[in-house]
C-alpha cells in the first residue's frame, strides 16, 4: 500500500480538510462526528444506567450484606448464599422453574413455528394475511394481569370454562389451579397462549427470508414436504430458531406476573398449593416483599442471573454446530 499525504495527516487536525476523505462524508466534520454518536446513545444509556445498571450493581452489593431497609446493614460475606443453599424450598423453586422453562421453550418454539407456517401457507394468496398475523400476535399485547384474571376463571374447578368443556366430552376434570399437580401446567397453558404469537412473528419473519425458489428447487429435486423442511427450510431458519430459544429461555425463566396473578396472592399466597408454582421469580418476590429478606432475594436474583448467563453461553456455543449464518444470496 502506498501512503498518500492525506493518509498520514493527524486525525485530530480539524483545520485543514483531509484530502484522503470523500467530500460530504460525515467524517469530514470530525468535530461533530465524534460527539454525535455519544450524543445519540446518551438518552438510552442514561435510562439504562438509571433503571438497570445502577439497580443491578446495587443488587450485587446487597447480596453480600445483611440488608435492612431501616438502617443497620452489615457486611455478610457469603452468608446469604449459605442460607439459600440450605433452603429446600429454594431448590424446589429451581426445579419448578426448570420444569416450567423445559416445557415452555420447546412448546413455544414448536407451536410458534407451526403457527407461522400455517399462517404463511394459509394466507399465501390472501389479503387476510395481515389480519391473521394480528390475531395471532394479539394475546401477547394484552396485559398479563388482566388476561390472567380471565384465565383464572377458565381454570376455576367448579364454574370454569375448562372443566365445563371437559365435562361436555366426559373427560376427567382436574382441579387446575387448586391442584398441586395441575397448578403449574395451568400457568404454562396461559403462558403459551400469551407468548406463542410473539414467537410465531419471529418465525414468520424467518420464513420470509427463505427464498421460494430454493424450496421449489427442493421439490423439483424430489424432496418430500418433510425432507424439504428438514433439509432446506429448517437449516435456513436456524438463526431465527436460535434467537427464539434464547429469548424463550430468558423470558420464561423470569416469568412472574402470571404466576403471581394466577397462583400467588389470593390463590394460596406463596405460589400455588404446596408451593407447587413457587418458581424462582415468584420466590424472589415473596422473599423480598412478603418475608422481607431483601438481601436473600438479592442473592437469589444473582444466582438466577448467573444461571441465565451460563445457559445462554452454552446455547451460543452449541449453536455453532447447528445454526447456519451464511444468509442467502437472493
Amino acid at each position, binding site marked *: 500500500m502506498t501512503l498518500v499525504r492525506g493518509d498520514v495527516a493527524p486525525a485530530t487536525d480539524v483545520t485543514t480538510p483531509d484530502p484522503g476523505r470523500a467530500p460530504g462524508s460525515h467524517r469530514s466534520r470530525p468535530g461533530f462526528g465524534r460527539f454525535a454518536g455519544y450524543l445519540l446513545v446518551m438518552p438510552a444509556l442514561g435510562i439504562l444506567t438509571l433503571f438497570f445498571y445502577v439497580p443491578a450493581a446495587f443488587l450485587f452489593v446487597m447480596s453480600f450484606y445483611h440488608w435492612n431497609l431501616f438502617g443497620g446493614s452489615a457486611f455478610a460475606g457469603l452468608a446469604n448464599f449459605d442460607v439459600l443453599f440450605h433452603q429446600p424450598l429454594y431448590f424446589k423453586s429451581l426445579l419448578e422453574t426448570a420444569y416450567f422453562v423445559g416445557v415452555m421453550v420447546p412448546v413455544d418454539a414448536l407451536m410458534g413455528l407451526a403457527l407461522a407456517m400455517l399462517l404463511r401457507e394459509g394466507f399465501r394468496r390472501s389479503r387476510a394475511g395481515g389480519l391473521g398475523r394480528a390475531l395471532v400476535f394479539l394475546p401477547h399485547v394484552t396485559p398479563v394481569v388482566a388476561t390472567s384474571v380471565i384465565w383464572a376463571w377458565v381454570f376455576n374447578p367448579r364454574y370454569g370454562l375448562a372443566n365445563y368443556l371437559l365435562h361436555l366430552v366426559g373427560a376427567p376434570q382436574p382441579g387446575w389451579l387448586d391442584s398441586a399437580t395441575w397448578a403449574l401446567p395451568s400457568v404454562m397453558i396461559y403462558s403459551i397462549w400469551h407468548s406463542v404469537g410473539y414467537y410465531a412473528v419471529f418465525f414468520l419473519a424467518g420464513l420470509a427470508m427463505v*427464498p421460494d*425458489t*430454493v424450496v*421449489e*428447487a*427442493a*421439490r*423439483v*429435486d*424430489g*424432496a*418430500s414436504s418433510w*425432507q424439504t423442511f428438514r*433439509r*432446506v427450510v429448517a*437449516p*435456513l431458519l436456524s438463526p431465527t430458531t436460535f434467537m427464539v430459544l434464547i429469548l424463550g429461555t430468558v423470558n420464561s425463566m423470569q416469568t412472574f406476573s402470571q404466576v403471581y396473578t394466577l397462583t400467588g396472592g389470593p390463590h394460596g399466597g406463596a405460589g400455588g398449593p404446596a408451593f407447587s408454582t413457587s418458581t424462582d421469580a415468584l420466590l424472589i418476590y415473596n422473599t423480598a416483599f412478603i418475608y422481607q429478606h431483601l438481601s436473600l432475594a438479592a442473592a437469589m436474583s444473582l444466582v438466577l442471573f448467573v444461571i441465565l448467563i451460563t445457559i445462554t453461553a452454552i446455547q451460543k456455543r452449541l449453536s455453532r454446530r447447528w445454526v*447456519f449464518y*451464511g*444468509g*442467502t*444470496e*437472493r
Partner: protein
Amino acid sequence: MASVELAEVVRRYGAFRAVDEVSVEIRDGELFTILGPSGCGKSTLLRIVAGLDRADSGDIRIGGKLANSAEPAARDVGMVFQNYALYPHLTVRENVAFGLRVRKVPRREADRQVDEIAAILEIADLLDRKPRQLSGGQRQRVALGRALVRRPSVLLMDEPLSNLDTLLREKMRVEIRRLHNRLGLTTIYVTHDQQEALAMSDRVMIMNRGRVEQVGPPLEVLHEPSTEFAARFVGSPPMNLIRMQVHEASETQVTLQAVDGDGAWVQGPASGALACGQQFWVGVRPADLDVSPTAGTRSGLVVPVVMDVAELARDGVLLHCSYAGRNVVATAGAGDPIPALGERTLVSAPWGSLTFYGCDDGRRVRATGVSVRWPEPATAAASTSWAPGDPYGDGGLGGDAR
C-alpha cells in the same frame, strides 16, 4: 428421455390469462426454446411443465403420460432457475447430490455420480465450497449439475444465463448446446434473448401475451416470421412494418397506399380480387431495402423518407430514416452511398421481398390473393443452427446491435 406435449394449456390470474391456450409438442431429445418479451408467460409455462404451478385447463403429457396433477418429483424433470436457487447452507457437492440423497441413493453411489457430472461441468475443484463462495458462472454450472445429476428425462431452464455478463453468456450458451449434444436430453429453455434462442435451439417458440405466435427452427423463425408480432420481434434489426390499404385492385394488379403518411405505395401482381380499403401490414427486411433518390422499380414498395441516423453495425451500416414520424431501417452494404442527415430520399424493395400480415389477426397472408414471398426453406434449418460463424446469411444477427 421423453417428449413433452402441451394441449390448450391455460393459466389464469383472475381474468388475465398468463398462458393462453398453448399447444405444442416438444420432441424427444430436442433443445426447444421459448422466446418472448418480459411478462409473456414463459416462466409460467415452464413452471406448469415442472409441476410447480397448475394449469387451469389443458393437458400436459410428459413421455406420453398425462402429468396434469403430478407432483414435480414424479415428473422426472430437472430445472435450472434464473437465480440458480442453490441451497445456501450446503456445499456444492451436497447441492448436486441433494436430489440423489432424498431419493435414498447411498452416499458412495451419490458421490460417484456427483464426481461424474462435476467432471463434465468442470466444477470438480469447487465441490467443497458453499454457494456464496462461487462466481455467477460457477453457480450456474452447479445449478446445471444439480439438475442433470439425476439424469432427468426433461431439463427445464428458465433464463439460466441472464445474470451473466455478455462474454460469459456467449461462452455458456455454446457449452449448454455442447452438453445437449452430448447428453441428448429433451430441453426446454426459456429466454427473452433472441440471439440466444436462435443460436442454440433446434426449434424456437415465440410467445406473446400468453399465446404462441410461431414455432419453428431458428432460420425459419428468423426469415419467415409468421405473425406481425414475430416480425416485429425477431431479427436485429427486425422487419419494418408499414400499414397499408388496397387502393386499386384488378384481376392481375394491386396497388396499396400507406394508411397514414403520404407517398408510400406498393404495387404488384395479384391473383384474385382484393377489396378496396382492405388493410395489411407490409413487412420488409432492412437488408432488402434499397436506398436511392430514384426508385427504379414499378413493382414493389417505395417509401419516401428523410435520412436520420447512420449506425455502424457488424456487417454494414444501418440507416435509420423517418417516414411519417416512424422509423424505417435499411441496411447499406459496403460501398453504398450514405445519404446526408436530413436528406430526402427513397427506400424501395422488390415485390418478391415483401411479406403481408393481416391487420385483424396479425397472421401472414397467403391465401387472400396477394401472392406472398415464401422462400425455399433455408438449407441448414434445424440441424446445425448453432454452428459457429454466421449462419444467417443476410446479417440479421448483428453481434452488437441489440
